[in-house]
C-alpha cells in the first residue's frame, strides 16, 4: 500500500488486528449487501467475545449466523433477529446478550458515530422497553429519549464498485446500512465486486468517499437470497 491506495491482497490482511472482545459494525439488511467473505474470515480466525452491531444476524448457515456455533459473538445490537434458530436458542438460554434496537435508531447510531456526534434525541421508543434507563426530554411539547451513538473497532462493509482510493458505489438495496457502517469504524474494511483505477468513477456518483475506508479487497460473492419471490414471466403482475 502506498499513498491513498487502500487495496490489500488477502482476506487475512483485510481483517488483521481484529482481536477478542472487539466491537464490529457490519453492513447489510437480511442477507442483502452483507460482507460475506469478511464474515467468513472472522469465522476462520476464530475471534471470540465480539460485540456485533448489525440490523440482523444472518441465517443459521450464512451471514453473521456462521459466527454463532463457535460462540464467537458475546453481544449483538440488532433490530430484527427472526429466521435464525440457533440465535433464538442462544438468546433464550441467556448465552447471548441481545440489545434490540429500533432500525432507524440503529442507522442513526452509526451515522452519528461516524459524524462525531455522541448522542441524539429521538421520539422512537418513548414509552417502550427501549426507553428504560435513558434520559428523556421534552421538545415543543413532545417526549424524546437520548440515544448514544456507536463507533466500532472495526466496520465491515460490502459495496459494488470501488476505485483503489476506496471511493465506493453501492448497488440497489444492497446499500442499506453499508455507507453508515463505513463511517463508523476505527478501521473500516470494504469488500467489493470490482476495483477500478482512481478517476474511473464519476465523482458525482460516489456514495461513500474514500476518506472513510482503510482497507479494500475484491471478492466473489454467493449473494444468497432469503425470500425468493417471483411472478410468472408471462404476466404484467398487479402494479
Amino acid at each position, binding site marked *: 500500500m502506498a499513498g491513498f491506495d487502500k487495496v490489500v491482497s488477502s482476506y487475512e490482511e483485510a481483517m488483521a488486528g481484529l482481536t477478542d472482545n472487539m466491537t464490529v459494525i457490519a453492513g447489510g439488511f437480511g442477507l442483502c449487501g452483507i460482507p460475506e467473505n469478511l464474515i467468513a474470515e472472522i469465522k476462520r480466525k476464530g475471534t471470540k467475545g465480539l460485540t456485533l452491531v448489525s440490523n440482523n444476524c444472518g441465517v443459521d448457515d450464512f451471514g453473521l449466523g456462521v459466527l454463532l456455533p463457535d460462540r464467537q459473538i458475546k453481544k449483538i445490537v440488532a433490530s430484527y433477529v427472526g429466521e435464525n434458530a440457533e440465535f433464538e436458542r442462544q438468546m433464550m438460554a441467556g448465552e447471548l446478550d441481545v440489545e434490540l434496537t429500533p432500525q432507524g435508531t440503529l442507522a442513526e447510531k452509526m451515522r452519528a458515530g461516524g459524524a462525531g456526534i455522541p448522542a441524539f434525541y429521538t421520539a422512537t*421508543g418513548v*414509552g417502550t422497553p427501549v426507553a428504560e434507563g435513558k434520559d428523556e426530554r421534552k421538545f415543543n411539547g413532545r417526549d424524546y429519549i437520548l440515544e448514544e451513538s456507536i463507533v466500532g473497532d472495526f466496520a465491515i462493509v460490502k459495496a459494488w464498485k470501488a476505485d483503489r482510493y476506496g471511493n465506493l458505489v453501492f448497488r440497489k*438495496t444492497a*446499500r442499506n446500512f453499508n455507507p453508515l457502517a463505513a463511517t463508523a469504524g476505527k478501521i473500516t474494511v470494504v469488500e467489493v465486486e470490482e476495483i477500478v483505477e482512481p478517476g474511473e468513477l464519476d465523482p458525482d456518483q460516489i456514495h461513500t468517499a474514500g476518506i472513510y475506508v482503510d482497507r479494500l479487497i475484491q471478492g466473489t460473492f454467493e449473494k444468497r437470497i432469503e425470500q425468493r419471490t417471483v411472478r410468472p414471466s408471462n404476466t404484467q403482475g398487479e402494479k
Partner: protein
Amino acid sequence: MTLLREQIAQRVAQEMQDGYYVNLGIGIPTLVANYIPDGMEVMLQSENGLLGMGQFPTEEEIDADLINAGKQTVTMAKGASIFDSAESFAMIRGGHVDLTVLGAFEVDVNGNIASYMIPGKLIKGMGGAMDLVAGADNIIVTMTHASKHGVSKLLSNCTLPLTGKGCIKKVLTDLAFIEIKAGKFHLLERAPGVSVEEIIKLTEGELVVTGNIPEMTF
C-alpha cells in the same frame, strides 16, 4: 362473516389517496399493494432503502441486490429511488410518509400498540416498527379482532411490551373499522354480516357505538 386477509387489505386500500407515499408492513399490509385503485398513483416505501417498490420479479428479473423490508425479491417501479438506511428513516421519522399500515398483537384505548415481542415466547425484534409508529401521523393498524380462543386484542391496556405509546388512531380488524380518540374505541364500520353486539362482545376496551353503524363496502 369475518373479513379475509385480502378483504382487510382491500378496505385499507380505500384509504389511499392519489400521490401518497405509503409504507406497508409485513403480512396483511403487504397485500394492500394489490388493491390500489386504478388510475391512482401511489409510491411504496420499503424501509431498507427503496422508494417506488414494484411488483415481484419474474424468474429472469430476480436480483439478489433488490429486496423489500420482508427480504423478498422485488422490482423497482418507474421513478423509484434508492438510499441508505439512515436516509430511509429520516423520511419516516421526519413525517414525510403519508400513510403507514402495519400489524399488531394488541392495541388499547389510549392508542398504545404492542407488536414486536411476546416475553418468553416470541422475540424477533421491532425492525422499523417503533420508528414508523413514532414518526408517522397517519397510521392504520391491521389485525385480527380477537384470538382464535375469542380473547380480545382491543384492550383497555396493552399487556405486552409496547412498540409505541399513544400513536394509533385507526384500527382495521376482521370485524370492524375503529377509531381511537379521547381514551376510547369508536366503531366506524362493521364487516358485512357482523353484528354490533358481536363486535362489542369481542372488544375488551371501552367501545363507543353512535347511531347506525354501516357495513363496509368493497
